[in-house]
């Protein structure tokens, strides 16, 4: 390694992980891309932060990032929450790559809980942090059984959950981590994104990678892959709608956060995607 690169990465190998580990993760990624939606086991490493904080996503990002990349990190749509700030700083320190908050400028976007409102384009890579990769886990606790169910594409059980929702609430109440079928074959958990973001997965021009650190699984959605959210013919999949607009930028078509402003119950609705909201307020020079 050259002296410059060493200074940039603060004494660590480029992107923290050693090269052997990165190669191992890349092999898992290639397999995941070749079999869309299939959960590939990988030898996940201990990372310098706790499970649940994005260890899976960080390992995937570390394996694919190069010196010319431009990284954006979002947490619940925001570029400036703790998780986003610390992961962005982690990579700035260990790789020296450029970082950005603008979706359009980024080549790699690591995310927790959201897909940006700005349409992704070919060449961009989304990296998701996944807490529990197995979509059938709450219905069937045994890993041996769920693996067999995937092998045989035996997904009737997932419909039992949707049936229960409708029988009890009159509609499908699953609001995030809404199960999807990938290319008509594998059932996949899209990480805890709101179901509002599910349509953005369908035939997206960007590559989507999913890393689960605690469970040590990687799965992927190659560009332009058909993604179908599960539903019943007479209870079709729908996304959330708000009666309000964003009170900052006036957007009527983005995912809104409801924020309690004081102890008298005043509420405010604003875009969850901060970059999108800022971009609408002050159009930046191209």
């Amino acid at each position, binding site marked *: 390694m050259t002296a410059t690169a060493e200074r940039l990465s603060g004494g660590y190998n480029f992107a923290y992980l050693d090269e052997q580990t990165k190669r191992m993760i890349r092999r898992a990624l290639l397999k995941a891309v070749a079999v869309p939606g299939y959960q590939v086991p990988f030898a996940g490493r201990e990372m310098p932060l706790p499970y649940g904080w994005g260890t899976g996503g960080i390992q995937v990002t570390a394996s694919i990032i190069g010196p010319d990349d431009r990284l954006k990190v979002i947490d619940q749509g925001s570029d400036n929450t703790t998780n986003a700030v610390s992961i962005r700083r982690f990579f700035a320190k260990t790789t020296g790559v450029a970082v950005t908050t603008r979706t359009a400028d980024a080549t790699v976007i690591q995310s927790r809980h959201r897909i940006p409102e700005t349409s992704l384009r070919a060449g961009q890579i989304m990296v998701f942090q996944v807490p529990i990769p197995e979509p059938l886990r709450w219905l069937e606790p045994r890993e041996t059984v769920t693996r067999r169910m995937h092998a045989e594409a035996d997904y009737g059980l997932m419909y039992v959950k949707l049936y229960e929702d409708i029988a009890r609430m009159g509609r499908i109440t699953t609001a995030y981590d809404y199960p999807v079928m990938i290319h008509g074959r594998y059932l996949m958990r899209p990480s805890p994104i709101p179901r509002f973001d599910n349509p953005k997965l369908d035939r997206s021009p960007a590559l989507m990678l999913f890393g689960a650190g605690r469970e040590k699984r990687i799965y992927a959605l190659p560009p332009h892959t058909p993604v179908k959210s599960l539903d019943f*013919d007479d209870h079709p999949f729908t996304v959330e709608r708000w009666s309000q607009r964003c009170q900052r930028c006036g957007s009527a078509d983005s995912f809104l956060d409801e924020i309690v402003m004081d102890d008298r119950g005043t509420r405010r609705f604003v875009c969850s995607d901060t970059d999108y909201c800022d971009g609408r307020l002050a159009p930046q020079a191209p």
Partner: protein
Amino acid sequence: MSDEPLLEVQSLTVRYGERAACNDVSFSLWPGEVLAVVGESGSGKTTLLNAICGRVAASAGAVRFRAADGRVRDLRTLPEAELRRLVRAEIGFVHQNPRDGLRLGVSAGANTGEPIMAAGARYYGDIRRTAAFWLERVEIDPARMDELPAMFSGGMQQRLQIARALVTKPRLVLMDEPTGGLDVSVQAKLLDLLRRLTAELGLAAVVVTHDLGVARLLAHRILVMRNGRVIESGITDQVLDDPQHAYTQLLVSSVLVT
């Protein structure tokens, strides 16, 4: 009754290590026929039932099943995925303990609807109508279909399990002690129900029981097992009224007469 048997079990042997739980068992079952398998605890009755539908792996023999398409398949050598599809579509299973056959965390309607959702039903209204229809058939008030099975009595749970087994309109139903653990009056009602359903639907059934009264009421033919072997078989009344084998005689004579 057609000339072709629905199920043909030939020299079926299941070994657990050195011990054979089921030894060289053969029988045929025709459409619409109810066969009772009786014998003491540990005689291999339940193992036989599990081996027929592939829940335990047999060590030797064949289980030839004539599927709805008319083709005969050996369930022992069928690939796993195909076996599962076939068993799910055409063979119903009723466990002794309803807790083994039901999902206790989801409603009675979802329990009944699960097999048809697994088979590909994707229209909520239809699934619900079908579930309500079968709940009514087993005498559960469809108004209670959104309740959890845990809220039901033992007899109701057992009837719910039967609805779940019948909802795919199977051609063969395997029942493991369907009346076990129920009190006598509930048993009688359940037997009435089973007798009516098998007659009306033309179901073929294998009923494992240690209760000769159940066998007498439900079954056309009977198979007596001991130590994994079939020691006597024949028409139910014939076997129970004129038992030939010493063990069958003992079994028949030990029934409490009230």
